[in-house]
């Protein structure tokens, strides 16, 4: 193993972690809010929320990447706005990679949190309201703790999906080592360049990362379960 290879393993691991964490952080508040609106508030736009929650699953990731390229490119409204006002070009940055990973993993986060909310007895939320808690406090003190299994599954599921994302991220982020080259993209590069041993090591790193993430999920579930008693 030479120094360049070591650097690629290390940098692609870091990029993958950074991209996945940011993707999860983007998804969490959006998916939580939309899942709550859909399950608890029965809003008129419920069907639209449901469609948004499922469509990234139905589209090929490359298509999602392509659409993001159009939406965020310098010729688009958003892209030109960001470029002209802030001097920022998102395409081929790790932010674009994170955004692409967020879009692709969003359905998993949304669905798991929705199931978590649907499992919360609404009478407990009403009880909290009658005891003096406003909607905001009820949500954070009663709903979220009771829906923790769904929320945790959403966080972990979304994170793992973001880790493994290749199609959309490679389209909007490209393959820039240390910037947008995630583990799956680094594996693809290694395979293309015939460096099978590097591909194997990178695959092993991906596998270990997935297992560690699942172990963390189980540990956290157990901790909360022990505390809550359910």
């Amino acid at each position: 193993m030479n120094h360049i290879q070591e650097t690629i393993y290390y940098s692609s691991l870091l990029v993958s972690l950074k991209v996945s964490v940011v993707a999860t952080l983007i998804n969490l508040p959006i998916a939580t809010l939309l899942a709550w609106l859909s399950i608890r508030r029965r809003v008129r736009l419920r069907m639209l929320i449901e469609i948004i929650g499922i469509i990234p699953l139905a589209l090929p990731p490359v298509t999602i990447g392509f659409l993001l390229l159009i939406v965020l490119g310098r010729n688009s409204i958003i892209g030109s706005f960001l470029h002209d006002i802030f001097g920022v070009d998102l395409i081929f940055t790790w932010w674009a990679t994170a955004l692409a990973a967020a879009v692709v993993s969003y359905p998993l986060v949304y669905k798991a949190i929705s199931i978590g909310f649907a499992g919360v007895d609404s009478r407990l939320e009403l009880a909290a309201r009658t005891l003096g808690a406003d909607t905001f406090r009820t949500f954070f003190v009663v709903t979220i703790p009771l829906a923790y299994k769904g929320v945790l599954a959403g966080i972990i599921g979304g994170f793992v999906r973001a880790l493994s994302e290749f199609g959309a991220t490679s389209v909007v982020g490209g393959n820039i080592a240390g910037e947008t080259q995630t583990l799956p993209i680094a594996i693809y590069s290694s395979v293309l360049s015939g460096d099978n041993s590097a591909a194997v090591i990178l695959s092993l790193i991906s596998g270990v990362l997935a297992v560690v993430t699942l172990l963390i999920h189980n540990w956290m579930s157990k901790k909360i379960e022990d505390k809550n008693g359910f």
Partner: protein
Amino acid sequence: MDFNIYKKYDSGFVLNVNEIIGDGITAVFGTSGSGKTTLLNCIAGIVNPDRGKINIGDQILYSDHPKVILPIHQRRIGYVSQEVTLFPQMNVLENIYFGHNLIPQRERKILPEYVINFLEIEPLLGKQISSLSGGEKQKVALARVLSISPDFLLLDEALASIDQKSSGKIITNLKRIWSEFKIPMMYVSHSISEVLAIADHVLILHEGRFVNSVSSKDLFLDTDLISSDYWFGFENIKSAKVVSQINSDQIVEIEIGGVVFNVSGEQILLNDQVNVAVGSNEIILSKIQTFDTSVQNIIRGEIVSISEFESFALVCVKAGENFLSRISLAAARNLELNVGEEIFMMIKSNSIKVLNG
């Protein structure tokens, strides 16, 4: 509290009620679908009426003109439902303090420590909700609502989800809550036994309207205000004091309204205040006092009312307190009972169930 509520549902059901609720415990008795829960939900703010007004003293909870809708969390109404809604992710102590911690310091008239002591639930404080019995859960639910210093208590079938043995303490506690904290209560139930055991006043709700408003005492005398179906399984639930230790025959003496009754095999202590239940069909009536019988309680009383239904008669006998006896129509005819007559109630000692679980 006074309210004037009109609420119409898509199903066609209309709740249209108008009442002033006084102090003490008021029961709303009604069949399934009569609108009891809708009424409670309107008062608590869970459902908004189509029109009307709801006030507690000077505070307007709801008014259609001028439009006022006080949010649920600002109403300060303690709501205890049939299905106990304790938060499972919190222990007993955290549940009790949940609402108390949300109200301003100056409005905390009732302290949780006092309530915990009052309801004797200190041993439960560190426990998880899932480890509590039905009766314990209901006590904790009461402690939790009392700790928000409520202006009014709504109790929706509060005894329905607990076993009869445990219900006695809850009944006692509800009465003690009124005498101790002076919080008016509305107790909603389809069990006339519970209603007469708990409430001072009864509102009879039928198809969304109050059809009668009577005192509990009057309902004993005027039983045909309610359909016979609801009297069929009626139990006389009475507050009693234990006046003797258990004797060698495993009999304990209890006193109800100044009259002593024998109860068999109950582990209760001298001077305990307990609630007891006697099924109306367990009270046998006799015009003559007979001693050659295995029955341990032969109580002299006076017939104060007789109501005949399609398949049975209900006889109200005053013996210290009023007791309802359900007898067959044939028995009522054969005995030729008349109001004002002397009558003997015969009750087996094991037909008196002590509710102190």
